[in-house]
């Protein structure tokens, strides 16, 4: 049994020198909660926005320094170290994804802080506890919830921990830390509050359900391997012959992660939540959650279950094909812009899973060829920036009742707001994967790695799905440019410099990554492999 009586306590080694970007984020989040408690209401907005933006920028710069200083391991294929006794893996891919999540976080703050569109207040409810349609709510209409900024920071911190977790328990805790703030943020819309609250409840109940599956998977894998550490699990997978617990546990962990990325058949929450949540939250969530969840999924399946590749790859084949088909077919029949983008996001999950299927052992890999990990990380950059920008534009198209996301009401947008319509058309073309945009290079990268790993049936479905997807993206462009505006058409509200810069940077990146993808691809290849 467990003999601990004579064990001496050994102080754990924690690599503060490499962990500090994540600690900055958590520290700023806690400071943000303190600001809510002590500062008077009129000062909170400015101090929260500055604190949040400042900490994100500092952490982003920090990630650059930490990544530069990572030690090289073994044959040089991977760089990194384990912080805090193996629970956190600080390696190249983790740093890449940290940077990515922080960039999406900065975009998220810029959208959260937008005040001009809503007429001087942010898009979040003045007082979430006030009942819709009551006198209390009208009195609260001039107030703002500034708690959203600490919530955002906690979610970002959870995402950073998620992609760099070195054992299953850390991964579970990180999953909850990133999810709980997002559940709350979804329910805080200023307008259409019933939809927003309903989205929050659906997201919460389904999210908690899926994390229950994830946790049972953790328990079973722990029973199988005798440890929660990814390296130890990998050894157990390579040495144990009895695979029953492994297969069941792996399936349950996959349910939890596939739910977070929105893969079929676990995609049901996505359209509802994306539509009901405040658009600024949707923009951040669509980009950053997907990056974090794919990062964690790659680490789990490559590092812990890499030796059991032949067990999980057939499952992923089926799920990738199903996700692309479901996402594309259902996006074809949507009449709401946010719902259509949500289904398109499901289809993109399928394309990303195609990249995940490209895993091969290092020996099979052609030297210099792009690896599956690099392809997926590059796709996450292109997809995330495009999606963030697209939802940011959706937040600007309004009529007297607030945001107008019915596609038919966008008729003639190209005539009276050529710039905004043009930028949105660019994002749509990038999502469709038209050459010279970032979407094309991203898709090319994931299809290439999947083909070279022999997953050609999935790639054929992916190409067909891309072709079908072009139809619903182009349909929106036709509505914007070739339909005459009528009295019910929505108009574009001029954003402040905050939203405008988020949209501008996303658009610039969409073009730049399409024309010269080299630098970001190089960065992804410098990141190397996961440490084991």
């Amino acid at each position, binding site marked *: *049994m*467990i003999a*601990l009586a004579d064990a001496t306590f050994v102080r754990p080694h924690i690599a503060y020198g490499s962990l500090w970007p994540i600690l900055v984020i958590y520290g700023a989040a806690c400071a943000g909660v303190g600001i809510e408690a002590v500062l008077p209401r009129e000062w909170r907005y400015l101090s929260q926005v500055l604190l949040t933006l400042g900490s994100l920028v500092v952490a982003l710069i920090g990630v650059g320094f930490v990544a530069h200083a990572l030690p090289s391991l073994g044959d040089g294929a991977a760089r990194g170290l384990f912080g805090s006794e193996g629970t956190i893996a600080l390696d190249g891919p983790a740093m890449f994804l940290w940077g990515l999540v922080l960039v999406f976080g900065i975009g998220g703050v810029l959208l959260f802080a937008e005040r001009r569109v809503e007429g001087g207040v942010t898009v979040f409810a003045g007082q*979430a*506890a006030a*009942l*819709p349609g009551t006198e209390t709510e009208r009195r609260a209409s001039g107030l703002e919830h500034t708690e959203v900024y600490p919530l955002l920071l906690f979610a970002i911190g959870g995402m950073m921990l998620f992609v760099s977790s070195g054992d299953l*328990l850390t991964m*579970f*805790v990180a999953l*909850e830390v990133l999810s*709980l703030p997002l*559940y*709350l943020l979804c*329910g805080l819309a200023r307008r259409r*509050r*019933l*939809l927003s*609250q*309903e*989205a*929050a*409840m*659906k997201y*919460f*109940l389904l999210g*908690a*359900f899926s994390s*229950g*599956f994830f*946790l*049972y998977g*953790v*328990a*079973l894998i*722990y*029973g199988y391997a*005798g*440890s*929660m550490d990814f390296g130890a699990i990998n050894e157990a997978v390579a040495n144990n012959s009895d695979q029953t617990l492994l297969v069941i546990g792996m399936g349950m962990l996959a349910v939890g992660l596939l739910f977070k990325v929105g893969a079929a058949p676990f995609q049901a929450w996505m*359209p*509802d939540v994306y*539509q*009901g949540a405040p658009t600024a939250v949707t923009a951040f969530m669509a980009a950053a959650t997907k990056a974090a969840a794919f990062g964690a999924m790659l680490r789990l399946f490559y590092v812990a279950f890499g030796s059991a590749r032949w067990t999980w790859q057939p499952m992923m084949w089926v799920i990738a094909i199903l996700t692309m088909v479901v996402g594309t077919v259902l996006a074809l029949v949507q009449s709401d812009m946010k719902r259509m983008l949500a289904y398109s996001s499901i289809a993109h999950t399928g394309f990303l899973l195609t990249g995940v299927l490209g895993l091969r052992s290092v020996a099979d890999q052609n030297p210099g060829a792009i690896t599956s990990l690099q392809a997926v990380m590059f796709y996450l950059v292109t997809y995330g920036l495009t999606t963030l920008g697209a939802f940011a534009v959706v937040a600007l198209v309004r009529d007297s009742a607030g945001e107008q996301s019915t596609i038919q009401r966008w008729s003639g947008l190209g005539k009276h707001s050529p710039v905004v319509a043009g930028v949105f058309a660019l994002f749509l073309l990038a999502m469709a994967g038209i050459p010279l945009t970032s979407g094309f290079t991203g898709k090319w990268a994931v299809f290439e790695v999947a083909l070279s790993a022999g997953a050609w049936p999935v790639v054929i479905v992916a190409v067909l799905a891309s072709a079908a997807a072009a139809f619903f993206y182009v349909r929106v462009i036709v509505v914007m440019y070739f339909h005459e505006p009528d009295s019910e058409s929505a108009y574009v509200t001029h954003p402040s410099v905050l939203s405008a810069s988020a949209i501008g940077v996303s658009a610039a990146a969409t073009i730049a990554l399409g024309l010269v993808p080299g630098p970001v691809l190089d960065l992804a290849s410098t990141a190397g492999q996961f440490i084991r």
Partner: protein
Amino acid sequence: MTDYVVLSSILFTIGAVGVLTRRNAIVVFMCVELMLNACNLALVAFANQNGNLDGQIAAFLVMVVAAAEVVVGLAIIMTIFRTRRSASVDDASLLKY
């Protein structure tokens, strides 16, 4: 030893079936908590089998996470209840198709 794992899997199944069949958001949420507790039982049983403490520590952290989840979950469900005077998950059906 196997008995504990079988019991935990039965509890987990009861919880999962409850989430899928019950209509009151609070009861659905209680079923999720039942699933988490089933996980705790499995973790502690496996810790005993493996002879290390990882599973027991995990069980403590799961309790903390479950407590945090209750805070967030009840806040959301209560807001919905105050708005609609109903905690049924079937009534919340504005978002569809």
